[in-house]
């Protein structure tokens, strides 16, 4: 395959960036998108040009590092995949591919396609845990039976990999899907119910302080989420939030 790439290049967080065009040839449809980027970077390196910086690590769709906005969509045109699992067979010979970083004020660019997603970490610091000591002196794991349906739903919410595609996709740069997945995971389990009110209030507060936009329920996040986190979580969080506000 022969492709034209238009890639966002930005030296560091202070300098202005721009789209730069590259031509690339001999791309196999079996390559993953990041392997295509590797080929480009190898060529740039040998030419003495600074290669394109991008976040990546596990390359099997679970660590949540990779974060490219490809042809106008987070993680590209395929569904339920991260960028690293996107394969070149999804493109055609001669295509022009736009590659941009995940954009939001809350995700400032570090370099090229690498962004700072520490806002997500800070939201989790605000309450993304169950306050239990790690002493091991807890009760037996089977002491609290958990209804399978709730357990499965909690699991589905917990599959979020924190990549930020929801924020990148949302026209409002809202982080509701991410935050609601975290809140839901815990609020669905009996262990997490004890501090559910406080958790949802604190996490939402932190989310607002970070400067994420508001949710207008367009549902784009759910479509682009590589793990298929459901919008139901947002409804659940809204419900929990209202309840917590009232009972406060």
């Amino acid at each position: 395959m022969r492709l034209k790439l238009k890639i966002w290049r930005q030296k560091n967080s202070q300098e202005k960036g721009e789209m730069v065009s590259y031509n690339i040839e001999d791309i196999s449809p079996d390559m993953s998108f990041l392997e295509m980027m590797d080929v480009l970077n190898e060529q740039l390196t040998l030419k003495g040009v600074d290669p394109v910086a991008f976040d990546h690590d596990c390359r099997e769709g679970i660590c949540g590092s990779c974060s490219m906005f490809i042809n106008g969509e987070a993680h590209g045109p395929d569904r339920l995949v991260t960028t690293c699992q996107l394969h070149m067979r999804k493109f055609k010979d001669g295509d022009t591919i736009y590659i941009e970083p995940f954009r939001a004020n809350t995700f400032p660019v570090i370099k090229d396609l690498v962004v700072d997603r520490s806002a997500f970490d800070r939201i989790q610091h605000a309450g993304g845990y169950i306050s239990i000591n790690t002493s091991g002196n807890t009760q037996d794991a089977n002491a609290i039976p958990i209804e399978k349906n709730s357990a499965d739903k909690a699991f589905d919410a917990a599959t979020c990999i924190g990549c930020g595609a929801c924020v990148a996709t949302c026209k409002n740069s809202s982080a509701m899907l991410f935050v609601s997945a975290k809140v839901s995971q815990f609020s669905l389990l009996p262990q997490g119910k004890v501090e559910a009110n406080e958790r949802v209030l604190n996490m939402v507060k932190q989310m607002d302080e970070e400067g994420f936009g508001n949710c207008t329920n367009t549902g784009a996040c759910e479509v682009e989420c590589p793990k298929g986190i459901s919008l139901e979580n947002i409804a659940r969080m809204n419900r929990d939030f209202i309840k917590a506000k009232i009972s406060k």
Partner: protein
Amino acid sequence: MALDSKIPNGPISEKWTNHKNNIKLVSPANKRQIDVIVVGTGLAGGSASATLAELGYNVKAFCFQDSPRRAHSIAAQGGINAAKNYQGDGDSVYRLFYDTVKGGDYRSREANVYRLAEVSANIIDQCVAQGVPFARDYGGLLDNRSFGGVLVSRTFYAKGQTGQQLLLGAYSAMNRQIARGKIKMYNRHEMMDIVLVDGKARGIITRNLINGKIERHSAHAVVIASGGYGNLFYLSTNAMGSNVSASWKIHKKGAFFANPCFTQIHPTCIPVSGDHQSKLTLMSESLRNDGRIWVPKSKSDAIAIREGRLKPTELSEDQRDYYLERRYPAFGNLVPRDVASRAAKERCDAGYGVNKTGEAVFLDFASAIVRYGKEKALLKGLDQSDDNIVGKLGKEVIKSKYGNLFQMYEKIVDQNPYETPMMIYPAVHYTMGGVWVDYNLMTTIPGCFAIGEANFSDHGANRLGASALMQGLADGYFVLPYTIGDYLAEDIRTGQISTETKEFEDAEKSVKEKIKFLIQNKGTKSVDYFHKKLGKIIWNKCGMSRNEKGLKEAIKEIQSLREDFYKNISVPGTSDSFNESLAKATRVSDFLELGELFAKDALERTESCGGHFREESQSKEGEALRDDKNFTFVSAWESNGSPSNSILHKEILNYENIELKTRSYK
């Protein structure tokens, strides 16, 4: 220097309890005066950071990723073992201990493994309390599945994402401590060296990966939890950033490196598709619970499949060779990983491979789909003889168990595994070898500890499935937090450790010089060129089977590749910016040294054991032959200038509770 493993006295079942009762403690007030550095935030590092902080120590945690949650523990799929005996199938602490020692081919330390088995049950309690959503049955209780090399169901799991859920549990425990200010988190920081003061570990030098700043950090103890070194092979199931550097740096400063050649080649990975491949993807071992592994019985069928003239589904049962079931009737498809991997390699080498490159075997779910389908049909009162109904119901069951793995396979290979068998081939997955530690998990550098995959202690020459998560969390939650106190109790009067000393200055200087060299060399070859080449040497000559000639060649080739590296490496960009090439170059330079020691260790150990298969040491049927008389020891290598001069120390392994037997899964 004689190795002292500090194994406590007494019967094995009481060693850990007695040890905990007798080691020194640090009072809560004094803990507040003590700093601990933890490098790496995976299951081991994350759980250790959280627990140490909770105990009251001031923890500084470092990871090269942009968040602790992205450590590669997250990619573990299948599950975590624990001797809970919830299934009532006869499991016990002793049995888990026995299985682990046997699975490790009798090359691990009894006392450590027993302790691991002992605390395993606690891990599950802890994780459930933290909100880890393990799989449950309809009664609301925890579900289990069975894994390779054992005869009980003791593996707890969260679909195919157990590692992720456990890591998020540890990460949430960390978050709680970060919010309390007890953990100071340094994301996107790479440890470049360790600093010793008066022979004790007192700090590290790091590089901020965003702006290239070299920083000094001091502490009363340093914990290395940076994972394994599978990326030595270039192609592995490890994350792209996984590296040996932290372990290697402490090795060069005095920590012994144990059993470097013990590598696990995992049997169920997606085969290599071409030269462009950057990494390999694992398909959880849990798939072997329901998948049957086979190749065609006749070579001509194998060739026809390879060339696309024949579909695997067109072969009838008697045209297939379920070689694991044939060779190992007792364990069948659930033999330990090393055995399964070698068997796949044997078939492919003999010409029965089934993909374009001839390096793949089938993993087939057709019979499981029928079996489950019939069960479900019976439950629902539907017609069990209707293939459509049975197929549909069976696929639903398979989907609920392995859905995400099947989806992942389909995305990568572009074939539907519900309809046609998966293709798999072994790939490097885990390294049992690592930094040598004593019973307290302390390395040979006082004050420097190693936990999780970074140390060597628990898995011997082969790790059983679902034991890595168990070990990482056991070390971090339940072992290190106790044993580190024994060391730190001596340090309560030390006070804050200054970074303005000659030791820190020297360490910083040498780091800066190395970086300067790499940037200024302006050679002609990229880092990836060297890494790929190194990987090829190791895979071909120190991979699934090894021989003297190949290992000797490998040592020579690695030496000359290392020379080439320092002559011709080209690192674009600057040292004071985000520069992934530079980070990679520093990591690859360490792999180039480790590679040689790896081959040397493999050369030295002329027996076959676990994942280490020496062609010179095999039975007539091609099974591995262990040499207990000469090799019942841990090889602990002391750094001495260059890898070729490394000095071998032997920690003799004593088996008092388990009788050494030939491992048989037949």
